[in-house]
Structures are given as structure tokens and as C-alpha cells.
């Protein structure tokens, strides 16, 4: 286990870099995904088309292809930036499609009768949305959304593999490559690093689920 204990500092920065990529991409994915979900449930067909094209394209393309297109394609059209930001952008774009679908299915899971009942007792659109529809939608959205974000933490490893460097995955590659350290202990270290991130995220999600879960 020396491979892990001797390189605790490296693992630490790896975890932090992975966390940094995940937080930035997660934020971007939530914002973009919510906008796209709004497009998909809007009454204007052009917006619906944009939303569904967005989801179809990004959900069916491997993340590595998305990242390659951005990292090697954007410089071709004169958009230059660091690999780090290309990686974060790619991960955010890819994840936003899944966020969009989680939110949209949450909204769709609320029965139309709920809003009809709200309107029939004289609630305004705003009241209907905030008091009746959204509280129920959020309850269905939280578990899948949480799973999407946890999967995103794991997907950040692909960002590392495409060439950002410094994240947990890259630390694993670096330690097994240059130092020629034993592979198994290094793997255990990398695994622990990811579990340090995903297990608390899972617990947090469980807490959030219990908070919003009410028997229907």
C-alpha cells in the first residue's frame, strides 16, 4: 500500500481537481438542462424541436466523442482555450441532456388533473405552478437527477483521459506509468478517491430523497 500512502498529496489534489471539474460541469449542466427542459415543455414548437434535438444528439453520442469534437474541433474554428475549460464544457453539455430528461419526466409525472383542480379553485398560473405542480415534480425529479450528477462525477474521469490531467484518473495513470508502481494498490487508491466523492454524494441524495419523499 506504499503506493497510496507515499502519494497521498497527489491523490488529494486529484480528488480536488475531480471535484472542481464536477462542480463546474454540474452547475453548467443544471442550468443548461433546466433551460432545455423548459424548451421541451413550452408550447412553442421551434423550442420543442431545439430541446429534443439537443437531447437526442447529446444522449446518443459517447462523451469521449463530444470531448474530442470540442477539444480538437473548436481550435479549428478559432476558439482557443485550455483543455480544462474544453473538458468542463463538454461534460456540462453531455450531462445537460440527462438533466433535461430527468426534469422533463418529473414535470410530466404530475397528473394534469392536479393543475385543473388548482385552477378550478381559482389559483393563478403562478400559484398553480409554485404550490401544486412544482412541489410534486421536484419529488420525482430528485432521485434521477441525483443519479445523473453522481454518474457525472464518474464521467469526469473521461475528461481526465482526454487530456486535462491532474484529476484522479490522471493521477492513477501517472503513478502506474512513470513510477512503475504496483498497479493494484494504485487502483485501490483511485477507487477510494472516487468513493470518497460518490458515497457522500449518494448519502446526500438519500437525505434529499427522504426530505421530499411523501407517500402518494
Amino acid at each position: 500500500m506504499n503506493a497510496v500512502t507515499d502519494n497521498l498529496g497527489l491523490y488529494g489534489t486529484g480528488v480536488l481537481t475531480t471535484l472542481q471539474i464536477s462542480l463546474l460541469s454540474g452547475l453548467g449542466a443544471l442550468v443548461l438542462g433546466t433551460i432545455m427542459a423548459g424548451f421541451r415543455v413550452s408550447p412553442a414548437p421551434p423550442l420543442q424541436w431545439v430541446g429534443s434535438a439537443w437531447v437526442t444528439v447529446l444522449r446518443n453520442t459517447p462523451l469521449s466523442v463530444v470531448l474530442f469534437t470540442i477539444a480538437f474541433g473548436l481550435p479549428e474554428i478559432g476558439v482557443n482555450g485550455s483543455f480544462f475549460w474544453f473538458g468542463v464544457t463538454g461534460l456540462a453539455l453531455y450531462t445537460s441532456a440527462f438533466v433535461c430528461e430527468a426534469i422533463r419526466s418529473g414535470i410530466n409525472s404530475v397528473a394534469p388533473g392536479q393543475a385543473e383542480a388548482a385552477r378550478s379553485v381559482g389559483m393563478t398560473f403562478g400559484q398553480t405552478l409554485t404550490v401544486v405542480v412544482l412541489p410534486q415534480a421536484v419529488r420525482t425529479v430528485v432521485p434521477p437527477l441525483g443519479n445523473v450528477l453522481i454518474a457525472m462525477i464518474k464521467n469526469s474521469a473521461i475528461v481526465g483521459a482526454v487530456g486535462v490531467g491532474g484529476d484522479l484518473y490522471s493521477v492513477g495513470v501517472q503513478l502506474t506509468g512513470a513510477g512503475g508502481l504496483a498497479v493494484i494498490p494504485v487502483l485501490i487508491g483511485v477507487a477510494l478517491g472516487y468513493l470518497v466523492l460518490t458515497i457522500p454524494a449518494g448519502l446526500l441524495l438519500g437525505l434529499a430523497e427522504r426530505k421530499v419523499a411523501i407517500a402518494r
Partner: protein
Amino acid sequence: MSVLYDIPGPRSRRRILIGSLIAGAVVLAVLVVVVLRLAEQEQFTAEKWGPLLDPTTEEFPLVWQRIGLGLQATLAAAALAVVFSLVVGTLLAVTRLVSAPWYRWLVVGVVELLRGLPVVVTIFFAARALPALGIDLPILAYLVIGLTLYNSVIIAEIVRAGVASLPRGQAEAAAAVGMTRGQSLRLIQLPQAFRVMLPALISQLVVVLKDTALGFIILYPELLRTAQIIVQTTKNPLQMFFVVAIIFIVINYALSRLATYVEKRLSRSTTTPTGAAPAPSAQEGALV
């Protein structure tokens, strides 16, 4: 009909129409700006697209031949990984259901550990750890092993959910006619569970197919890696990766439509078992 708004009357229909026109104009404007930008950066030249679209160029047959080989390699890896994942996953699920507690906990531990690891990590370490242990295999095998490690535990969970979704009476009836738990699983529960699971399994196929595009990290010549190599001579990364993305989108889109179709078919042809847990749906499997 949506929960968010009523069926629109004449006035809201007019408003929606105006809104649609404005939104459409904005979308179109964005597209035009993107296309102009691409044209300005000379991304629509014959030089960039020729090798991919113009059969008269000398690169065209070579490029598409290599893409074909890459696609073959991708499909081969995906097919092998799916078959192995299915076998290992089913074994994991079944042994977890019928074995002694200590073994059950071991399986749960392995499942949780592998679920928490990025699939790119399992692939990379399969390719590094096995040679270090003196096991030399072709690169395809490392990719398949890496994919199987990750996907078999996902499939194990799908199988478990599938078995759990059956009415309890099925297992009870099997026990009542004297079957052992193994016989009951093999002859009664699993055949029904696989039927229920089919949509989720097809969706998992999409995930596996997308994950084969990680083969580039161990230099397995799948579609993306092939594209990466071609780009070095044709110098058209944007166009090349665009084509690769289209290939993946077409295959995966067809697969997800198939999953939805099968799901509809199944829910129509069988009466829903009462008092059973919900079956794993196609959507659940289609995660990331």
C-alpha cells in the same frame, strides 16, 4: 395535454403562434451565425469534406474502409461485452439471491465498489493490471474485461429488480410443488424476469456501445481511435468527429427506439401482475 397549461383557446393559440415565430427566428438566426462562422473559418471546403463525402478523391475509399473497420471493432467489443456482462451479471444476481449471508455480503461489496468506479478506470486498469500479473491478452480482451467489470454489476441490479418485480406467488408456487430455490429461479423466475427486463437490457446496450468509444485510451482501434488516426493525415477533426458522432447517434437512437417499442409491446401483451414491484423500465437503464 400538459399539466402546465390547458388546451389553448383562440387567443392563446395566436399568442403561441407569435411566440413560435419569434422563437423560430431566433433559433434560425443562431444557426445562421454558426454556419457563417464555420464558413468564415473555411470549414466547408472540399479539402475538409472531400475525404468524407466526395467519392472521386483518392482518400475517400481509404477513409471509409478504415471507418468501416473501426465500426466493426466497436461493434465486436460492444457485442462481446454485452454477452459477458449478461452472463456474469445474471450469475451475480442469482448467487446473491440464493447463497449464504457472508457470500451475499461479498457480492454486495463487489457490486457497490464496481458501481462507484468510472468505467474508464476499470478499462485502464484491466489493460495495466493483467499484464502486470503476467496475463497477456489482445487489446480487445482488455476493453471487453473493463466494460464487463462495470456493466455486469449494472445488469446484476437489473436482473435483481426484474426478479423482484414478479408476483410472489410465482416463487411460492414453485416451492409448493417441491422445487429448490435454484430450480425455481432457473425454470420459473428468470425466464419471466428476462422478459420484463428486456427494455432495460436494450437500453444498457446503448450505454455499452457508447462506452466502447473509451477504447482509445488503451489504443484499441475502435471508431473514435480510428477517426483520431485518420485525422492526423486528413487534418479535418471537426468534420471527422462529426461523422463519428452521426454514426453513434444513428445506431443508439435506433436502439433506444427499439427499447421503447419493446416496452410498449410488453406492457400491452401481458396483464400487469398485481401486488408486484414496478419492473425496471427502459429509462432507468439508459443512464449516462
